């Protein structure tokens, strides 16, 4: 906040006032010291319960996503504009917490992460905010096999020859938080790629033209090129680029 000491002072005053608004009591150590350690039976029971809950929820989610569907699916093809809205009903399953990531789902169909060969990618200019522009990148599952996408794609700008321009994207927390997105045939998921607006230079920059964005789906090693001509800050500054977690559908994620 170098352009306004007054605002920095106000920010500091606010943080201190909120953090120290009321005195923090002495606390009660016994609240946690009485709890048995991790290896105890009690904790194991909690863990088993959590794992069971995850299995049930995941099973229910998969049943919803891949279970029998009503008869109106027959005539729908991906890309047929007039039938876009009822194309799919996908289910997003909240990402499991760190304590349960090793959980497997016995009996449920294995759904693999979407590979680049399964995906068709499109890009469109989104609105952006707060000194940043944004491009919405949409992934469509064009294969007959359902697949999942989870987390942050990686992206960077390329020139007309396909050479990388500037920085690889950072992960930008968005709303909603990352979830596992299950994609049936024809379903779409999207990420918002944001970058510094070259018209609001900070620091000032010379603009250059990017021809496309190269994007790697989460957890994959092969990237895809999506053509979209955009003007970005050139060397040496180059823009900071970020991606938001993949979400189901094609709505820009605010960041």
């Amino acid at each position: 906040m170098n352009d306004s000491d007054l605002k920095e002072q106000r920010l500091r005053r606010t943080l201190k006032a909120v953090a120290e608004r009321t005195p923090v009591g002495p606390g009660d150590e016994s609240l946690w010291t009485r709890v048995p350690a991790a290896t105890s039976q009690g904790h194991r029971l909690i863990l088993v319960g959590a794992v069971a809950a995850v299995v049930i929820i995941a099973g229910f989610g998969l049943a919803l996503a891949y279970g029998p569907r009503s008869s109106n699916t027959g005539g729908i093809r991906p890309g047929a504009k007039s039938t876009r809205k009822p194309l799919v009903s996908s289910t997003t399953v909240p990402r499991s917490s760190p304590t349960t990531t090793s959980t497997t789902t016995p009996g449920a169909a294995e759904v693999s992460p979407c590979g680049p060969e399964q995906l068709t990618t499109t890009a469109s200019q989104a609105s952006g905010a707060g000194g940043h522009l944004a491009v919405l990148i949409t992934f469509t599952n064009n294969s007959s096999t359902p697949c999942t996408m989870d987390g942050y794609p990686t992206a960077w700008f390329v020139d007309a020859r396909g050479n990388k321009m500037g920085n690889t994207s950072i992960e930008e927390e968005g709303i909603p938080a990352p979830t596992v997105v299950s994609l049936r045939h024809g379903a779409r998921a999207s990420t918002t790629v944001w970058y510094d607006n070259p018209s609001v230079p900070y620091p000032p920059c010379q603009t250059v033209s990017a021809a496309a964005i190269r994007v790697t789906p989460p957890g994959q090693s092969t990237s895809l090129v999506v053509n979209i001509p955009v003007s970005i800050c050139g060397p040496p500054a180059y823009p900071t680029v970020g991606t938001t977690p993949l979400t189901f559908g094609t709505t820009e994620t605010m960041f």
Partner: protein
Amino acid sequence: MPSPDLSDLYRRQRTAMVRLARLLTRSEAIAEEVVQEAFLQMHRRRKVPENPEGYLRATVANLSRNHIRRLSLEQRWSAGERITLNDPEIDETWTILCRLPFRQRAVIALRFYEDFSEAEIAQVLGCRPGTVKSSLHRGLSKLREEMS
């Protein structure tokens, strides 16, 4: 039984951690719960980590983030729970801070309340220094725009 080190840490750091968690979770009640849970998690570890203060602070930040994520998913948080101080300038600034995404608010709190460097903030939040820099820049830009 808790190790003497952990009891000592509790007495020395609990107040500071609750204060930080208030800024991160936006709630006094949740802040207490988050810090309690952080100590519980450390208690469950077989041994105290090498840098207990750092580990504790990172755990508090992580648990606060989990809490905010749950709220985002459930859309439960309402302005009614907001901490107010009856000082228009402070209340306005805090309202703007509350609307920032978690990481931007966390970076601002660690930078301007704890006076941490960008590298230290990256360690607490478990992200890259570049992410801290951009989050700080974006958070402050929004604050500047909206502060009257």
